[in-house]
């Protein structure tokens, strides 16, 4: 039981990181348009995030310091500032979208307009971050987010046919172009390797006071949590591929994600799904708000974290409060939350090398890690992925313009 609770950091990170508002819509939309023809992009992304999150967690556990802190020290203020600016902007957009995601889940349960829920949600997110402790917070939302396993149960009930075949034959269907197909591949890859996941994971490791002795727990977190998040994404993709694709339905709203589940499992399934969406988006809102506070505080060398009382880390909590409040205000302008998330995913893809290259450098530094530096195999895989990240980052913006954002 103790082992099980110890891996909740990974589960929360994975569910918050993989199955947040953006992934819910991106995976659902991909399934409806390409069936399982882009499942490979999620699998490639999962392997990448496992490799880099393991590095980030190991760095934190061995050195006792989070990755961002070491990036600034090892690579200097300029490189760290570029990293900070890119990740904080994307993180802020993601936080705003997550707040709206929670509000949308409440709207689906109550039919009260989501804009009316946003101030309440933003206040609740801040309250949990201000008053709540790190470990109970991650366990409650990580485990509640597991309600999204309902996608798997629904898929089982739907008796899907030809899903595996469509996964084995990548490529766009006749009514879609290669440009659109590649744009969605980049978006899924970017969503899977969202930068805030590694910052949250490594800072969370420090919050949980991991040491060298916890490296097995750290690996279990990475190897169970992230693939679990990826599996949930694929199950969601499978439900829309089975129900929405044959009807020619494209996904524009979070509400459409519930249609296949309701068809398969009725009101009970739909209720469980809404709980799962609430938990996953709320968990992701907590993660992104904390990540914003972590990166800014670690860059400027301020006291940070939930492991000290708020009055010991006032500037960290001020950043969290401002980011949450401004995120709520941004969404109150009635900007489409789904579009905000889609743009944040695509911009994240464009900024991926800025996040992951410094992690690779630090994970090879014996001054910080001693004998726990990367092995040859890890370095080989990580270098291949770094090349892939550069290709993805270069292609993202041209693909977005060429396909008009995948329209």
């Amino acid at each position, binding site marked *: 039981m103790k082992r099980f609770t110890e891996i909740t950091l990974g589960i929360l990170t994975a569910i918050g990181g993989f199955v947040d508002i953006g992934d819910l819509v991106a995976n659902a939309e991909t399934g409806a348009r390409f069936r399982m023809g882009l499942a490979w992009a999620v699998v490639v992304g999962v392997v990448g995030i496992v490799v880099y999150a393991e590095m980030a967690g190991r760095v934190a556990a061995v050195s006792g310091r989070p990755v961002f802190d070491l990036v600034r020290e090892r690579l200097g203020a300029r490189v760290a500032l570029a990293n900070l600016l890119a990740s904080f902007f994307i993180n802020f957009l993601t936080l705003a979208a997550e707040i709206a995601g929670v509000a949308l889940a409440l709207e689906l349960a109550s039919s009260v307009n989501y804009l009316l829920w946003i101030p309440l949600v933003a206040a609740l997110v801040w309250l949990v971050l201000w008053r709540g402790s790190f470990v109970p917070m991650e366990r409650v939302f990580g485990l509640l987010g597991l309600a999204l396993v309902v996608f798997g149960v629904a898929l089982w009930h739907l008796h899907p046919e030809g899903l595996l075949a469509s996964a084995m034959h990548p490529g766009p269907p006749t009514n879609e172009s290669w440009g659109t197909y590649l744009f969605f591949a980049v978006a899924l890859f970017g969503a899977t390797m969202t930068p805030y996941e590694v910052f949250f994971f490594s800072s969370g490791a420090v919050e949980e006071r991991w040491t060298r002795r916890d490296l097995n727990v750290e690996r279990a977190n990475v190897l169970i949590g992230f693939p679990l998040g990826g599996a949930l994404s694929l199950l969601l993709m499978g439900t829309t591929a089975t129900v929405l694709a044959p009807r020619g339905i494209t996904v524009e709203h979070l*509400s459409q994600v519930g249609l296949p589940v309701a068809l398969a499992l009725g*009101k009970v399934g739909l209720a469980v799904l809404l709980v799962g969406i609430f938990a996953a988006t709320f968990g992701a809102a907590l993660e992104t708000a904390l990540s914003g506070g972590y990166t800014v505080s670690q860059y400027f060398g301020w006291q940070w974290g939930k492991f000290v009382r708020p009055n010991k880390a006032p500037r960290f909590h001020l950043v969290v409060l401002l980011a949450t409040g401004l995120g709520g205000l941004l969404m109150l302008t009635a900007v489409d939350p789904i579009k905000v998330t889609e743009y944040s995913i695509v911009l994240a893809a464009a900024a991926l090398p800025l996040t992951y290259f410094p992690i690779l450098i630090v994970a090879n530094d014996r001054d910080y890690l001693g004998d726990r530096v990367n092995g040859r195999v890890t370095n080989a895989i990580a270098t291949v992925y770094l090349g892939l990240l550069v290709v993805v980052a270069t292609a993202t913006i041209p693909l977005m313009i060429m396909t008009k954002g995948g329209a």
Partner: protein
Amino acid sequence: MRRGGGALILAVLLAVLLCACVGPVRSFEVYEGKAATTAESVASAAQTARLAAGEAADARAFAPYLSIVLSEVERDAGGSEDVFGAIQPPDGRSAELRTQLLALIDRVTAVLADLRIAARNGELGRLEDIAAPLGELGEQLARFVEAHA
């Protein structure tokens, strides 16, 4: 470094804005393509409404959820109609196509509005009957897409 960062942010913002641009349509072929895309989008809204109405008939979803789904698809179909309707047809053939498609979309949006009203009134049992015309309308839209895509 600072100049480079500023240029990058500007380029990204420009790219985002460019994605939202709708340029003028100067040929029948381009206009026809936009008509097909609009028909596809409205057909998707109609199919979503049919699926939701079917789930309502089988008591598989809650009233608040269904009312949101139906409001959103009505808004989507109306939005697609507005955007397409605002495009100036470049020639006579395009104007005919416009009349044909907008008449079809009008019939779809009327049904979607009835569905939304019934769902908000809690008349879930009536939704499937109200949605019945969407089957035929959806097929007409599909034929339109096939002919003009």
